[in-house]
């Protein structure tokens, strides 16, 4: 198990490097810089600015410089927010995104797994079809439709909850953004859990457990829940990616100063160091998360450890 974990960690490093390199290349391939829109600058000034940001160096050298900075957690200076480093900007906005995302994932897991298991046990019955119909609807309604509709209903018409973020305090302001983020994930996880639970309940070892007189609840608790959770575990990587994507919209609509908002502003302003920083930051997060998922997978499924 230790060997497996170490191998996985080692295997994640080249992936991470490749991801950073790809992001770096794509950002540098994009035409136009942050200073293009301003008046045409005298060549000396432009050269000065380029030298200041080391843009005059050859690309490989810039990349190496970037990597060295990364090891110290330095993502470089922002082009637009003068006097701020990218790390600072991400550091102040990430806690907001993290709180929303973590809450959404936890809620999605609880409701998704619960609903999916319930539906699997009632397979074919009304309850099953109801839960599954609901979750298909959940998957099919985009975040940017859910968010305004929720605002229209609960903030504008019923006035139960605040529509925005700034100027409000307390738990209330979390409710709508978290629900918006969690909804598609709840739906997806519920479907995944149901399918996988039905699959596991049809396996021979479950029949063995039933033949041993273990009773439905014990069969599920002891024999079925672990393997049934494997697809859900595998989905955690994409789920995080989905939440990050969703956060861009949610933070825009609710006016939350998170990383998503920071990114959209950065992209609009062609603040490429900021954009690159956010991409690298989130990519590392996803790689790390996938690593954890892989290790947890091996904890549940002993056969994986030997591969």
């Amino acid at each position, binding site marked *: 198990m230790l060997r497996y974990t170490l191998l996985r960690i080692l295997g994640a490093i080249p992936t991470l490097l490749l*991801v950073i390199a790809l992001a770096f290349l794509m950002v540098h391939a994009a035409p136009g810089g942050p200073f293009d829109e301003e008046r045409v600058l005298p060549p000396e000034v432009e050269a000065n600015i380029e030298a200041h940001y080391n843009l005059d160096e050859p690309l490989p050298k810039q990349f190496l410089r970037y990597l060295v900075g990364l090891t110290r957690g330095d993502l470089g200076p922002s082009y637009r927010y003068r006097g701020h480093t990218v790390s600072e900007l991400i550091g102040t906005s990430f806690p907001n995104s993290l709180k929303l995302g973590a809450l959404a994932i936890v809620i999605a897991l609880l409701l998704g797994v619960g609903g999916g298991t319930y539906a699997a046990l009632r397979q074919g019955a009304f309850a099953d079809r109801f839960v599954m119909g609901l979750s298909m609807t959940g998957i099919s*309604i985009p975040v940017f*439709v859910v968010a*305004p509709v929720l*605002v229209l209903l609960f903030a504008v018409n019923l006035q139960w909850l605040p529509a925005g973020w700034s100027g409000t305090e307390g738990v209330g302001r979390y409710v709508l953004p978290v629900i918006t983020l969690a909804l598609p994930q709840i739906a997806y996880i519920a479907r995944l859990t149901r399918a996988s639970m039905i699959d596991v309940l049809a396996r021979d070892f479950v029949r063995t457990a039933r033949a041993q007189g273990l009773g439905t609840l014990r069969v599920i608790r002891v024999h079925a829940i672990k393997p049934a959770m494997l697809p859900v575990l595998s989905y955690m990587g994409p789920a995080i990616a989905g939440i990050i994507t969703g956060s*861009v919209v949610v933070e825009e609509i609710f006016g939350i100063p998170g990383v998503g908002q920071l990114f*959209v502003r950065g*992209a609009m302003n062609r603040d490429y160091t900021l954009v690159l920083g956010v991409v690298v930051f989130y990519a590392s997060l996803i790689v790390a998360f996938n690593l954890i998922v892989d290790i947890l997978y091996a904890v549940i499924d002993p056969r994986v450890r030997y591969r």
Partner: protein
Amino acid sequence: MKTIRVTGGILLVIAIAAVAGPWLSPNDYVTTDFDAILAAPSAQGSHWFGTDNLGRDLFVRTMLGIRVTLMVAIVASLVSLVIGVAYGAIAGYVGGRVDAVMMRFVDTLYALPFIFFVILLMVAFERNFLLIFVAIGAINWLDMARIVRGQTLGLREREFVEAARLTGVSTPRIVLRHIAPNLLGIVIVYVTLTIPQAILVESFLSFLGLGVQEPQTSLGTLVDAGVAQMEQASWTLLIPASLLALILMCFNFMGDGLRDHFDARHDR
């Protein structure tokens, strides 16, 4: 089978409406009706879906939006289909080290927050309409490649392929006669499931103001505009939003139905 027929029927009706609808309406998609700014849906002036804040007819604009959305989605799915099938089939059929390297690359791309790249591309390349197709297709080919690769790998090991090799059937013929027909089912299922994903990305970009340019429109653009007006005129949001959801739901249900259909055939 019932699900496939019902959802297919709904989608067909929507598609026909999107193509023929604008002809039936006396209005067009750019002209402002000064008598009806933000008018609620009514037969008055034939504004069946009402008008927006510029007095433009929302029925015609919505139908146009559906056209654009469907077109983007279908073209993007075709792009992802071509890339994904070719990539996955090569990796799976060649196997060995080539497969390992190719799949490692796919795994790496999976770790990228792709939507951010697309946003970046949109900003950098001035919202080129063609680029939207390419960008969306480039996101969605990963799943297709993985699935096709897995299937091909499995098929390559199947005994009927070995039997064909043993009797001297050439590689192109093996791919054409033995591998491809057995991939068809799963590819159809995943194209059906890729379309709603492409629609999501397109409308997501349009919603952020990075998609289709005014006065052209798409369902995402309409939802975005609707959000701005929703407090005074909720129909500007609810009509395009529910049509978008309906289309997505139909594709999702259809993909699900197709998967069950092909699975059942396999089990026999």
